[in-house]
């Protein structure tokens, strides 16, 4: 299945502003992040602690709703879902 990935601020520089990722059916948000880490140079270091935990400053939305990285990384994605990844907000 195809999942759209949007990335902003520093993550836009690493991942590109928008890309599509091909994943197996039943893949989770965590699977998508791992796939990005394996195909995009620098993303693993930017997004994950050396221990493999997602860094504090990585914020996520699925279909434009915020998800909690503590709880929702196991969420199963479906064809057409959109993941957005960005650092803490800094507008104004």
């Amino acid at each position: 299945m195809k999942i759209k990935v949007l990335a902003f601020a520093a993550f836009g520089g690493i991942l590109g502003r928008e890309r599509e990722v091909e994943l197996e059916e039943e893949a989770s948000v965590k699977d998508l992040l791992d796939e990005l880490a394996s195909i995009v140079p620098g993303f693993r270091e930017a997004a994950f602690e050396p221990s493999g935990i997602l860094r504090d400053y990585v914020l996520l939305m699925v279909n434009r709703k915020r998800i909690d990285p503590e709880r929702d990384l196991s969420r199963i994605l479906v064809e057409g879902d959109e993941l957005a990844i960005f650092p803490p907000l800094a507008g104004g």
Partner: protein
Amino acid sequence: MIEIGEEEISLDRMIQRVRRNEAGAVVSFLGTVRDDGILGMEVEAFRDPALSEMEAIRQEAMSRFSLTAAEVSHRTGRLAVGESILAIVCSAAHREEAFSGCRYILEELKARAPLWKKEISSDSGGHWVEGHGR
């Protein structure tokens, strides 16, 4: 009116639009690119979610502080030192509400709207401003 765009903000027109006969006070905030030894700033938005969040914040401010009207405009793209980034305008019957509403929208926007700023430095590079909002 809530807007996000690349065009120069017309604060004056925003102020004219929130004036009402039943309002005795109009408070406005204008945020501009401050010269911190930078060349300018690049502002990025996750546009639709940012617009929805700004509208939600506007509605909260309207009811919490009994505003008669409120408008918010945030620019995106490349901005030079001195240019406007953000304008917030609130009208209310009395000054306390107008000040509180304007301040509320500003603080909530910084904390909740998906927007980011990159400071452009002289070496053709730049760095993203560390955000505090989640």
